[in-house]
Every structure is written in C-alpha cells, then in structure tokens.
C-alpha cells in the first residue's frame, strides 16, 4: 500500500477537530494532530485549525514552542493553511485578546466585525476573490466568526517585517492575493500567499471543511499546485 502524505493539524487545545480530520480524509491525506515543533516546522502539509479564542490559542502555541516552528515553515515556503481563528493567528494582534501577540507573520490586526447584524456571523456567505487571484474562486462558503481582518488592511497586506527568523527578503518573495466577503462591512475572507510559483500559504476566515464540495475542491487545488496531491 502506498502511504498517504501526512497532514499535521496543529494542536491548539481545542476539542472539535473531527471536521478538519474529515477534510484531510476526503483529500486522501493522513491527518495527525500534533504539537511537536520539529514536526510542525517540517511536515509536508500543516493546518492551523480554527476554533476557540485568540489569547488561549496563542498561549498554547507559544508554550509549545510552535510560534517559531510556524514562522519557519511559512518562510521556507512549505504548504501551510490557517482556518478561521487559525487565519487570524497569522496577524499581529486581535481585539479579542488585547495585549497578546499573534504569530505576526502577516501585517495587520484582527478586529470585531463592525456591524449591527447578529454576531457571530453564522452561516453561508459569498467570497469574492480579487481578479488577480489564481487559487481562490467565487462561491458560497460557511462562516462562524465574530472577528476578522477588516478589508482596510488589504492595501498593506504583506509579510510582517523584522520578525524572528525572517528577513526583508520575505517581503519581496511573497505575493498575496485575497478574497473579501461582506457582512455589514467588507472583511478579508481568504488569502493566498505565493512564493516560488506556488501558493504555499492559504488562509481562510471561513471553514473549508464545512463548506461542502466548494471547500474540498479549493483545498484539492491548493494541494495540487503545491505538488502534494494529484488528481486521481
């Protein structure tokens, strides 16, 4: 039997990872939950999952020496995904947990969605990728969030400067394209980060694992473009 590539789901101390595991299975990958920094830094594919609060998740990552591991794999151009809170953790900080530093891989701040509509935003909404996006497609996806990255951050969207283990080279090496969604106000609902002709980074404010066929297909394309998985 041919071994399936491993997909490491980063341990952030949340209980409900069954949906992300199921996504891995649908993609024909072997899911494994791990908090081992060596493994996280080097595994072929890593997902930072997305349930819980910003502060506790960052404490868990920092306590397990995973901040450096995540930064290292992203800067090495290894395929890395962040889902919901997992996307938010890539930024510098969040209104949800003031004073707690995020992974700080991307510039920008997470804020409470500025709307009078019910929060959390719970349900299906549309993502609208920018024209130059090469991985993201227009469609309906499932959200469960009260926080997000305001679309005002779009203009400055970039690799954060002068972080641990990064150099100014990263800024020029990565190219980012994004999708926005409107819930009262527009926010960044997904980001694809390209380096060396591969979209090594994919961040989704929505839940691809709960977005029906659309979510599975998005991740299947992502893996193919990263040469992890080929169409059977």
């Amino acid at each position, binding site marked *: 039997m041919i071994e399936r590539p491993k997909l490491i789901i980063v341990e952030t101390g*949340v*209980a*409900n990872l*069954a*949906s992300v595991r*199921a*996504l891995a*299975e*649908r993609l024909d990958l072997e899911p494994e939950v791990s908090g081992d920094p060596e493994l996280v830094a080097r595994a072929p594919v890593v997902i930072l999952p997305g*349930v*819980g*609060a910003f502060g506790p998740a960052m404490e868990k990552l920092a306590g397990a020496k995973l901040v450096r591991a995540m930064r290292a794999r992203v800067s090495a151009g290894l395929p890395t995904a962040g889902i919901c809170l997992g996307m938010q953790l890539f930024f510098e900080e969040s209104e949800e947990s003031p004073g707690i530093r995020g992974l700080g891989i991307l510039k920008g701040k997470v804020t409470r969605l500025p*709307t009078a*509509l*019910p*929060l*959390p*935003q*719970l*349900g*299906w*909404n*549309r993502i609208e990728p920018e024209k130059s996006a090469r991985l993201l497609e227009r469609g*309906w996806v*499932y*959200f*469960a*969030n*009260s926080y997000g990255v305001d679309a005002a951050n779009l203009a400055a969207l970039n690799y954060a400067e002068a972080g641990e283990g990064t150099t100014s080279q990263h800024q020029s090496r990565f190219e980012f394209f994004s999708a926005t*969604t*409107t*819930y*009262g106000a527009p926010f960044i609902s997904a980001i694809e980060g390209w380096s060396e002709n591969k979209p090594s980074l994919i961040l989704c404010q929505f*839940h691809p*694992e*709960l*977005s*029906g*066929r659309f*979510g*599975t297909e998005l991740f299947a394309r992502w893996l193919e473009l990263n040469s992890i998985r080929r169409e059977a």
Partner: protein
Amino acid sequence: MSGLAVRIIPCLDFKDGRVVKGIKFENLIDSGDPLERALVYEEQSADELTFLDISATVEGRKTMAAEVARIRKRLSIPITVGGGIGSVGDAARLLESGADRVSVNSAAVRNPSIVDQIAGQFGVQCAVVAIDAAKNDTMPSGYEVKIAAGAVATGLDAVAWAREAASRGAGEILLTSIDRDGTNLGYERELTRRVARAVGIPVVASGGASKLEHFLEGYQSGASALLAAGIFHRGEVSIIEIKKYLASHNVEVRL
C-alpha cells in the same frame, strides 16, 4: 443587506442511534440509515443539519456519539447536536465525535452556567441554547419556557431567558414553538420576532412549517435560519423548492 444566506436546516430525531421519525424519500430505499439521509439532504443543498437525540439511556447516548462520528466522516456541512446534554463533558464528547455545535435545553434552564462553560471552553459559535416556548399570557412577553420535552413549565419568560442565554455566551438560539410543533400551521411569528429583536445573535425558527410561505414568514420575522423535520422526511417540500421560492422574494439563499 447582510450578504449572509438564510439557512435551511433539516432536523433528524435519533433514538439509540437510529432515525425515528417516518421518512420516505423518492428514489431511495428506506434503510433507516441516518448517514444516507444526511447525505441526501447535503446533496439537496441543506445548509446544515441538526440532530436531536431522544435516547433515554446512557447506551443510547454512546450510540449517538458513534453515529455522529460516522456521519461526520462523510458530511461536509455543519452538524448541530442536541438532546440530553447535561454537562460540559457531554458537550465535549459530541464535539470530539464531530458535532460543530451543541445545543443545550433543559440543562441550561436548570443550571445556566453551563452556557458560560461551553462558550468559554469551545467558543460562542459552538454554544446553541434551545428554547421550547409555549404561549402564556401571564408572562411579560406572552411566552413561557418549558423543559423536559415540553412537559415541565418553568415560570421563565421566553424572551428574558433568550436574552440571558445570549449574555452568557450562547452563539445561537434554537427557538421551538411548542404550540406550533407538528401542527403544520407555520412558525409562531410573534415569538420569533420578539426573541430575534431581543438578542444580538442568530435565531433559528422551529415548529410548524409545512408550506413555502411559512419559510418566508419565518425569515420575515427575523429568523436567521429555518428548521423543519417531518415535511423534509416525508418528501412533502424540498429544500431546493424552498430556496427558489425565497430567492423569488429577494431573500438571499445559497443555491
């Protein structure tokens, strides 16, 4: 406009791991297998599924968790599980099995701090509070909360309880009208309106929907999601029909 689609949610009642309400699909042999039914609803563009466990035994509940795990592996839309959740441990077990949200009903009335605990531990989006309400003119809002599957009146005002649940961290209210449940008369609009206005979180309307118009009424009353059971199981109204009808009235749906 929010941009968010109104959700259509089929609800499946489980007892000891089996679906118990009469179900008859066209072109589908009734195998009694909840997985098969769940997949049919997903294919018909259901926006999520709600499972209600009416098992009365510990064994039955274990079977339920195993069924959730089995369905989760194949289903790629959200699952909410409710019925008999009495502790954070019960909630954790179901979330680990593959539920995306858990709904607490009687236990939250008896011990409201369970709402804070579930929201605190798993996030507000995981914490659904199910409220079964019945008309009672002596209540400030005109509706009283009942528990134990409607058998026990609590003396709690339905709107006040919904507000408290939201302030404790509930991410959604699943609101069932006991008076309308099973009547085919449509959602209890006044109840839905009052609760939706009182809380800043999504409200799922439940109980009584049998016609396309009822779903539009539920939406117009302020519900973010519309739940039904029997009419889907018996094949009387299809989810796609409902969505097309709502779209024709300029309601955002995922089609």
